[in-house]
């Protein structure tokens, strides 16, 4: 009897007591219910349409297990004994009555019957297995015993069997649910619900009693109330209600009340059983359905809630995951962006620097280029895949051959190394020629096999061009600066030109010294704004124009005005300059300044002053065409004049005024040697780097007569005028009387003219002029290195020569001419005495 609680093998005393009391309780209940049930008997006294003990027995077996069978069996026997024909029949009937509930309980437990009967399957189980099927046993045994014991004739067997079966089944259906309900947890309904339940039960009872006590067939009126009760309270309400209704109906049938007044026994029986079955089925199924529905709804709600909860949790999880994912995406994006940015920056840097890089995977002959490499070669980036040959396609034939040879040599060396940098030319598809500088490095494998070569290529076209331009400009500038300064006796000249080191461009600074036909010296210094070839060429043009104007115009302001006009018309640049003329004989300086730093005059005692007069605006700065002004100054013997461009006094971070002050201080310590002074000034003023070009021109007036005058001059007519200036000055410095000076000047001039005219003919050559003061007598010696040739015979030269000879002899005290293969020497003497004194001396 698996499924029902089995008989314990050993029972304790208390357990035995409990067992016994259960048997007594079950037996007692069975017996009482049987007595009550018999009151409802329709046939004889032992066949009742509603047999409650069966329900009690089923419930007892379900609750306590099959071991309480003695209670049932004894009670059944006790009930049947008085109504059976003999003890054997009573025992047989009792056996049937015991066996049927046991089988019912067994089957119900077997199919998982729940005592709450809250599922449709529970209702079906109790109806079909617990009641209809199981009760076949008791009905068959009971009815058979009645026939066999002779209590009823065999012809009444079917009727007896049917009443027995339905009575037992109804006993189960009506009583069992009610009893099972009693064994459940106490009902926790509210007062209002309890009241409602009470009222409903009362209604069911009232309606049942009413319909049973009327002749009208209104038994069906009970059904709605049962349904209501089942709907409101399920089995808790339905079971008692059904018990009430069925009990009342059975009672009515037994007493022949209302609907049961007429008709045969069978008809009454059918009516009653149909009613009871309807009541039992309806309440059972309806309650079970409602419970199930409610539970389903609750389960659904719970599931929904759980689902909602789960969805909520899942949503939270998802949103967390989503947030994490978003964060990761953002990080990835950021990293991506940074990478792209860095790539972009690299590309940009390459583009700006015009540097590309490449890699050559040698075993596969696969070359990859950076974007800039493509641009350098005049292609769109990543325009095509490359091989080595494709990569050098644009390289000019000669250079390509050299590159191939270099690469072949490198591949054969079998070790990692850098290839020598190589400069080469390419011709782009559009014909543009570029100059590139390539660098490369070879990597080899462990076996010395070449693996790959990486390298960079820089487009140096522009810098090559700039370098070339720079060279041209520098050459141009150098060629435009005087390669040597004129030699002017009594005047020291020194010049410096320092190109900017920090800038690859040459500047437009220049200086010039012009020996003017009237014996004065023109000095110019200037600065064309800007650098490079243009500034240099502008400078060249201005220098030539200035020379031309200097020869034409006597006045420096006129010269500057004309240059200003020229600049306004032809030159797009701003130019500053100073032009000055210096008369060595008198020491007079006249100058005009177009926006240039002022010249610095340093006296022989070291006193310094800037010559700030004569200042006009820079050339090209304004359309001002007013007259340039001109001022004069005097340069004493021993004084130094410094002309310079702003590069000398301008420094980054200091004002030009500081520079001027510093120059003044430095120049005060002027020293003996003008060249040394220039070096000293440049060395002190210019620190590490020359940021701008510097031109410096220095002039110093030195005493002539301190020693004999010795000049070596080219044998050309134009040297005569400057020579006269020098001789005049020398004579003045030795305090010769003006009349004596005039005589010596003419005689000297004649001797020099002869040397120029005769000594070299058309050839270039030098001659020497030597003036010595000795014992109050001036001795003039003119020496040439040519052969004294007879005059060419032209009338003019002949006449001049004759006049000259005569003048020399008349003007001087003595004239000696010695001609030899090495040249001719003319030696002349003249006393400084004048008038009668001189006549006396001559006479001696």
């Amino acid at each position, binding site marked *: 009897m698996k499924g029902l609680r089995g008989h314990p093998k050993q029972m304790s005393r208390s357990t035995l007591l409990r067992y016994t009391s259960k048997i007594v309780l079950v037996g007692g209940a069975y017996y009482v219910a049987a007595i009550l049930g018999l009151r409802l008997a329709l046939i004889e006294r032992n066949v009742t349409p509603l047999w409650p003990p069966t329900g009690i027995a089923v419930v007892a077996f379900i609750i306590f297990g099959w071991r309480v069978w003695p209670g049932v069996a004894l009670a059944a026997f006790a009930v049947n004994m008085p109504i059976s024909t003999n003890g054997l029949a009573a025992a047989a009937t009792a056996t049937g009555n015991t066996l049927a509930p046991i089988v019912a309980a067994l089957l119900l437990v077997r199919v998982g019957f729940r005592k709450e009967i809250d599922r449709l399957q529970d209702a079906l189980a109790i109806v079909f297995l617990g009641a209809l099927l199981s009760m076949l046993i008791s009905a068959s045994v009971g009815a058979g015993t009645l026939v066999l014991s002779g209590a009823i004739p065999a012809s009444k067997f079917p009727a007896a069997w049917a009443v027995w079966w339905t009575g037992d089944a109804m006993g189960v259906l009506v009583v069992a649910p009610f009893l099972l309900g009693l064994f459940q947890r106490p009902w926790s309904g509210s007062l209002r619900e309890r009241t409602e339940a009470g009222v409903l039960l009362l209604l069911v009872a009232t309606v049942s009693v009413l319909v049973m006590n009327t002749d009208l067939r209104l038994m069906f009126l009970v059904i709605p109330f049962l349904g209501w009760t089942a709907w409101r309270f399920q089995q808790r309400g339905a079971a008692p209600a059904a018990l009430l209704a069925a009990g009342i109906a059975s009672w009515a049938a037994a007493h022949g009340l209302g609907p049961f007044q007429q008709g045969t026994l069978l008809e009454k029986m059918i009516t009653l059983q149909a009613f009871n079955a309807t009541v039992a089925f309806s309440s059972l199924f309806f309650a079970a359905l409602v419970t199930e529905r409610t539970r389903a709804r609750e389960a659904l709600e719970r599931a929904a809630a759980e689902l909602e909860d789960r969805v909520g949790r899942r949503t939270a999880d998802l949103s967390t995951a989503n947030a994490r994912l978003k964060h990761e995406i953002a990080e990835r994006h950021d990293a991506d962006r940074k990478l792209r940015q860095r790539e972009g920056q690299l590309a940009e840097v390459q583009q700006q620097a015009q540097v590309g890089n490449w890699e050559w995977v040698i075993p596969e002959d696969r070359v990859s280029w950076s974007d800039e490499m493509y641009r350098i070669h005049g292609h769109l980036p990543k325009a095509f895949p490359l091989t080595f040959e494709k990569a050098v396609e644009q390289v000019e034939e000669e250079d390509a051959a050299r590159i191939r040879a270099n690469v072949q040599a490198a591949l054969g060396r079998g070790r990692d190394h850098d290839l020598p940098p190589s400069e080469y030319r390419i011709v782009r598809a559009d014909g543009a020629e570029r100059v590139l500088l390539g660098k490369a490095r070879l990597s080899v494998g462990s076996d010395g096999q070449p693996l790959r070569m990486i390298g960079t290529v820089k487009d140096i076209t522009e810098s090559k061009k700039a370098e070339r331009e720079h060279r041209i400009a520098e050459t141009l500038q150098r060629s435009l600066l005087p390669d040597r300064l004129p030699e002017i006796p009594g005047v020291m000249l020194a010049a410096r030109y320092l190109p900017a080191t920090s800038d690859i461009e040459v500047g437009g600074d220049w200086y010039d010294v012009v020996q*003017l*036909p*009237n014996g004065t010296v023109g000095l110019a210094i200037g600065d064309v704004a800007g650098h490079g070839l243009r500034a240099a060429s502008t400078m060249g043009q201005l220098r030539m124009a200035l020379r031309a104007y*200097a*020869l*034409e*115009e*006597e006045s420096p302001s006129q010269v500057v005005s004309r240059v200003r006009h020229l600049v306004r018309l032809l030159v797009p640049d701003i130019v500053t300059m100073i032009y000055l003329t210096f008369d060595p004989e008198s020491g007079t300086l006249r100058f005009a300044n177009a926006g240039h730093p002022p010249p610095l005059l340093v006296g022989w005692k070291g006193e310094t002053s800037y010559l700030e007069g004569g200042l006009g605006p820079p050339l090209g700065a304004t359309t001002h065409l007013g007259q340039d002004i001109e001022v004069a100054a005097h340069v004493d013997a021993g004084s130094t004049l410094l002309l310079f461009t702003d590069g000398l006094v301008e420094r980054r971070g200091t004002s030009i005024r500081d520079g001027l002050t510093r120059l003044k201080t430095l120049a005060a310590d002027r020293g003996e040697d003008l060249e040394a002074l220039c070096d000293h000034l440049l060395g002190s003023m210019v620190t590490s780097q020359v940021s701008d070009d510097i031109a410096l021109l220095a002039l110093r007036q030195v005493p002539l007569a301190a020693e004999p005058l010795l000049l070596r001059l080219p044998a050309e*007519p*134009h040297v*005569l*005028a400057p020579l*006269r200036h020098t001789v005049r000055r020398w004579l003045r410095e030795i305090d010769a009387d*003006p*009349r004596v000076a*005039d*005589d010596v*000047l*003419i005689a000297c*001039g*004649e001797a020099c*003219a002869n040397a*120029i*005219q005769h000594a070299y003919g058309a050839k270039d050559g030098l001659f020497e002029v030597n003036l010595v003061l000795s014992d109050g007598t001036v001795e003039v010696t003119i020496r040439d290195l040519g052969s004294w040739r007879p005059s060419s015979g032209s009338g*003019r030269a002949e*006449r*001049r*020569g*004759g*006049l*000259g000879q*005569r*003048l020399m002899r*008349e*003007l001087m005290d003595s004239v000696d001419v010695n001609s030899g293969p090495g040249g001719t020497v003319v030696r002349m003497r003249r006393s400084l005495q004048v008038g009668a004194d001189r006549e006396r001396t001559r006479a001696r």
Partner: protein
Amino acid sequence: MNELARVESEQHGSLCLVRVYGEIDMSNDREVLTAIEGAVARKTVRLVVDLTHTTYLDSAGLALLLRLAERIQARQQRLSVVVPVDSPVRRAFELTGLPSVIDLESRSEDAMNQTRPGYSNDQV
């Protein structure tokens, strides 16, 4: 002009006055001669060369004047040269005996006022 010598001229009817500023030597004698001859109009009867502002003149200048005198005379014109007494140029003239072939005046006014050929009175 920033030249060694500069020539200016004035025409007074048939008289042409030429002033030479600066210095004359073998480097510019031809230019000066050309300039003087260029200044003489065709109608000129008398040419006065004023050397008052000439600061230097040597054999080349003297030869120039002799040549000028020859050309002027060949054209039936007369030449007078003005050299102040205290001029450094004057001694060269006198020492070479040029006054014997060229009219020499001390002042330009005297030379211009002369109506007939001959030496001026202030001749040394």
